[in-house]
């Protein structure tokens, strides 16, 4: 018995590699985003250095067309990029989960089929096209990106939540809570939503990767933050115009973006395997 136990302890748990790598990479990025802009002797948005000078010992990532330090700008953008993406996932996750759950447990067929049709309609549009179109009507900017992402993505979460809520609503523990005479609101928020949201939160993690890239892509297309704010997509947009003359203003923000995406991908993959391991036990 004791032998088996020690063996189990020594065994690496499923998905650990992905989780450690992912969290490690993300932690490094956040740390760099905190520290480097503070200790850097250059202002991220203030031109003044020699324009387009290649990476060297003083400016590690070189300077851009306007003579700003690319190194400082790349790490100054960490919180803008990750923060926008985080809010852009959190809002549709919350709204979609609540609406989807309410649809799943409601008995009103008319409302159900009407909202269901609207959800199907929204989901039919190609994600990025729909977001771009909405920004055309609301106007550019990071806030618009978040608003547009929320208006589009809640429907995907709602669809997942509705399917799940129908199942959860029939479970024994919900029935038990009803018999105990708990209020409807309490059953909804304490018993149904937590069980529904485990599914939507899992989706949110993989959605986070898509949204990080989408935020940068939209800025790249000129729909994001106005200059001089350092933001990866906008930096790549500026750099792309002089790509053949200087590669560094484009490549370094791009690599930072890849780093962020890959770290979330590792976390998602690790978590998925960990959950599968828990489920099969």
């Amino acid at each position, binding site marked *: 018995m004791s032998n088996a136990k020690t063996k189990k302890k020594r065994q690496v748990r499923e998905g650990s590699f992905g989780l450690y790598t992912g969290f490690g990479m993300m932690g490094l990025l956040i740390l760099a985003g905190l520290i480097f802009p503070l200790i850097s002797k250059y202002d991220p948005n203030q031109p003044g250095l020699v324009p387009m000078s290649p990476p060297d010992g003083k400016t590690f990532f070189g300077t851009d067309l306007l003579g700003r330090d690319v190194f400082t700008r790349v790490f100054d953008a960490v919180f803008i990029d990750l923060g926008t993406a985080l809010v852009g996932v959190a809002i549709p996750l919350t709204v979609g989960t609540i609406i989807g759950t309410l649809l799943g447990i409601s008995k009103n067929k008319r409302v159900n089929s009407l909202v269901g*049709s*609207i959800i*199907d*309609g*929204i989901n*039919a*549009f*190609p*994600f*990025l*096209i*729909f977001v*771009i*179109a*909405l*920004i*055309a*009507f*609301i*106007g550019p900017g990071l806030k618009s990106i978040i608003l547009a992402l929320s208006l589009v993505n809640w429907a995907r979460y709602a669809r997942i939540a509705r399917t799940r809520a129908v199942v959860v609503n029939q479970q024994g523990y919900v029935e038990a809570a009803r018999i105990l005479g708990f209020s409807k609101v309490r059953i909804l928020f304490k018993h149904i939503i937590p069980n529904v949201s485990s599914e939507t939160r899992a989706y949110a993690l993989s959605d986070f*990767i898509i949204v990080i*890239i989408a935020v*940068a*892509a939209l800025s*790249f*297309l*000129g*729909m994001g933050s106005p200059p001089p704010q350092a933001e990866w997509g906008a930096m*790549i947009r500026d750099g*792309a115009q002089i*790509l*053949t003359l200087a*590669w560094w203003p*484009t*490549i370094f923000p*791009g690599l930072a*973006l*890849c780093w962020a*995406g*890959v770290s*979330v*991908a*590792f976390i*998602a*993959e690790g978590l998925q395997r960990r959950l599968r391991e828990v489920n099969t036990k």
Partner: protein
Amino acid sequence: MTQLPTDIKEAETKDRNKLALRRMFLGRIVRSLSVSFWVMVIAFLMIRLSPGDPVRIALGAEATEAAVTEMRHKLGLDTSIFSQFYHYFTGIFSGDLGMSFFSGLSVTNVVGTHLPVTLMIIGMSILLGIILAIPIALFVALSKNQIATYLFRAFTSVSLALPGFFLALVGLLFFGTTLNWAPAAGYTGAFPGNLHFLWLPAVVNCGSLVPVLSRVLHSSLMDTLDEEFVETGVIRGVRKIRFYWSYMLRPSLAPTVVLLSYMVGVMIGGTVIMETIFSLPGIGRELITAVDSRDYPVVQGIVMIFGLIVVFFSFIGDLLGYLLDRRVTLS
């Protein structure tokens, strides 16, 4: 001659299959039509999101009152919302998607000229994606090597997390400037010549398409491998090509085909960015130009067309998926 019981049974199941097929076909058509209707409604309502008067914003602050009134009348914006929707809805069926604010071209015209390039890029990406994904998935599924599976997982999940627009720029820098294999700009419409301009965008699109396709195909191949008939095939010593196709791929393809139709929507998004980067005269670049100039009718028309295209492809995909594997039960 009397029918044997087994014959009757066979005939019955055949009838039932036919009936199920017809029912599922009709159900899918009704569903697609209803989703298409909502796509039109949403595209119609989108213009109302703009803060303030869309006409005034589009024409600029210096526009005279008379010009604004005239434009509004021309667009039919001075009537009630229901009559606007009626005109919009009936217009779609007669091929009238409205007029551009600025160029004076009809939106149908804009879509007609630029859509073929976009569809060509998407078609090429899908073709290339299938050609790459099938051997990769087959190889990983058939190799009993744990490391191969592990590397496959790591590579696919990493490559899914890479931004396509950045890869396109890196590709342009490498293949365009350094190697001079791909042109940075320009385009000729004729068929074999335009491949020279389209191959790099298609390759970049495959960066996200191949991982998704090969992952799903790999997991259905693993399921198929557990089936007894695969073992039968091995024991009977079926020829290699027949084994790969009839015993492995055909029973595994259905989920991949359904996914492929879903990926059309994702590809459309990626292609918009590719067209902007490679200056290709597709409909995506037209969309970005319209967004920049606030040409609302063009934006609205293009978005609606893309929505309908996605609905159409998911209908076809579901149907093909069902025909490939009758075991699939559709929701």
